[in-house]
């Protein structure tokens, strides 16, 4: 880890839980669908194993429910969805993220203003 520059994947690691919860908050999804939807939203550096590991961890922590949907073509899909605990976690994390990103934006804006003058 000699790298000094911070890339997207470094940021993403910290907020992957929140991103996965937010995706599932929109609608229930299976593992690969979560990865795809995250990438569609611009989080293209997200790794499949990271999403799968996060899903399993959130499930084990009791934030998600899961059910298997049989499919005619291809394998059966294990869908994950938010339960009450998951929704609560999402709300709290979203608030925490909003205040953190707000503070960070202010800090960065101040820097850009300083630079601008």
């Amino acid at each position: 880890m000699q790298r000094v520059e911070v890339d997207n994947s470094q940021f993403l690691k910290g907020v992957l839980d929140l991103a996965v919860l937010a995706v599932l908050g929109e609608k229930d999804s299976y593992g690969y669908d979560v990865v795809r939807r995250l990438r569609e939203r611009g989080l293209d550096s997200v790794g499949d194993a990271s999403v799968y590991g996060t899903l399993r961890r959130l499930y084990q922590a009791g934030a998600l429910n899961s059910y298997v949907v049989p499919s005619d073509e291809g394998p059966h899909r294990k869908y994950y969805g938010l339960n009450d605990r998951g929704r609560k976690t999402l709300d709290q994390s979203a608030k925490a993220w909003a205040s953190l990103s707000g503070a960070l934006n202010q800090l960065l804006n101040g820097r850009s203003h300083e630079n601008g003058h």
Partner: protein
Amino acid sequence: MATDPRANDVAAYATAVRTALGDLPADEKTALLEDLEEHLSEIAAESEGPLNQRLGAPEQYAAELRTAYGAAHPRAAKRRVGLQDLRAASVWVSRSSWYREFRAFLPSLRPAWWVLRAYLAVLVLASWFSRGTDLRPIPNPFSSRGLLQVIATVVAIVVSVRLGQTGLSRDRGVRILARGLNGAIALFAFFTLASMGTYPSSMVGDAVSQQLTGAPGVYANGPVTNIYAYSKNGTPLTDVLLYDQDGRPLTVDGSATGLSTSYPNGADGQPITNAYPMIQRKPDGTPVVAPRVAIPPWPSPTASPTVSPTAMP
């Protein structure tokens, strides 16, 4: 499925990932990799080429998985929270004023328990020694065993209260033994009391009257305590001997209502118990008198409205 190259690819990849995570505890491995095959199958189904190309080496995938899953330890965290909640709840309860009042109130119940446990201990012993007979909650002092039970209860109460007042020795073994004995008495007494309450009072009464008279009681909208016989024209009859359909003397029992009966003695010296009406006295000593009865009017043979056919000319 087994012939599908995709399925083979998934199986091989999953095996490699599992091997790379072989050092994880078994339950954690199950929790993390429970549906790895399903997940990999989805990816395989929705992308071209082998999984290696799509996801990178299995070892790399396993490492990423480990990081993502191990970022926080949900199971350990969960357990800690549960214990903390329990501890907090117990602290809250033990600090509450109502709990302290409750604890302060308990010692005042001690003498009551000393008396109760003595009674319960005798009850348990009584149920042990008088199996098969009806156990009564309060011993009847007029039966031989009942008198024994009363004496035993009094002795047990004295001993139990004495024990309670003097307290036990500091020896830990003795204390544990005493606690066990107290618990055992309470437990056995519970079962004894529960089995005692299973007879409805009417059943007990029936059983008693059967034992006394050797025949079931006679009922007519209530227990029959005496029988009055009248001739056709309403003359009261005395010393009428009654028998049932099997030729057994028919007896009724008035003792349940507190009546005392004096039976006439036969020539053989045996009391005649089925001669009616019986001579009875109420509990206050006054004799039982015959009730007022309405004798139904019998058709008189001379005033018979019916005419027999043979009388016709």
